[in-house]
């Protein structure tokens, strides 16, 4: 059991971080805290994807141009560039989602005067 944890400790860290975000999303009453939880969740996914591209003792995916032109690049010496590309997309989409969510929260606050979920439900009359 302990060996299993030590060998895969990075995945355990991701799961713990992800569950912090998940609990904030479903357990908290405040809308801003929910948004923060969603951001933590998103960041954990990004961390997880980046870590799948890691190779031990490898360099960053910026290579020697002349070695590449001659076809002398070693695949094991360069990290996997594809997770980086995908996560660059995910970061930008995350910024957009955060911006729109903050705008909607501003609007909700202007309408109801509060960001607590139960108080808003009370004011709607349910």
């Amino acid at each position, binding site marked *: 059991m302990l060996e299993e944890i030590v060998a895969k400790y990075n995945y355990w860290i991701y799961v713990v971080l992800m569950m912090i975000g998940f609990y904030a999303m479903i357990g908290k009453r405040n809308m801003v805290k929910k948004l923060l939880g969603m951001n933590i969740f998103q960041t954990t996914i990004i961390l997880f994807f980046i870590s799948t591209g890691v190779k031990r003792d490898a360099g960053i995916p*910026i290579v020697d141009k002349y070695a590449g032109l001659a076809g002398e690049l070693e695949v094991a010496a360069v990290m996997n560039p594809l997770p980086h590309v995908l996560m*660059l997309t995910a*970061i930008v989409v995350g910024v957009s989602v955060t*911006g729109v969510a903050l*705008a909607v929260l*501003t609007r909700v606050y202007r309408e109801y005067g509060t960001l607590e979920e139960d108080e808003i439900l009370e004011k709607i009359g349910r």
Partner: protein
Amino acid sequence: MRRFREQVQNTEGGTDLIIRTSVRLMVPFIQLFGLYVIVHGHYSPGGGFQGGVLLGSAFILLALAYGVEYSKKYMSEFANFLTVNIGVFIFVGFGILCALVGGFFLDYGAMANVFPMPLPEWRYWGVFVVEVGVGMGVMGIMVSLYWDLASAGSRKEGL
């Protein structure tokens, strides 16, 4: 140096004198670094998104230290609108241009029909054109997001 001090002291509004002075000093270097990140993205970590965010952060810093109104003197709302739309237009327009000159959509190699260059070189420069478009779009959107969120939509006075 004296002119610089007058410039900092004579602007009304904003926050502390130390913050205003240091922001005044930092903004040109941040903008220079943003341009470097965009144009040097082929050889070092960087690219359109990162450089665009850096360029936008220079204006956001100005808006934080001096107020939203003051930052609009350096980038008016119309200029912001124009930057965003030109950025998106460069990207999509370059893709359509590639399709018009006899390739697929966003197939940079087809531009060799217009200006003869080897295929890898055209892909290199095609990525550069696209990155400039991305940088302009991201810069404008970042500044506009900050203006709207900091002043709750009025864009008059912010944080």
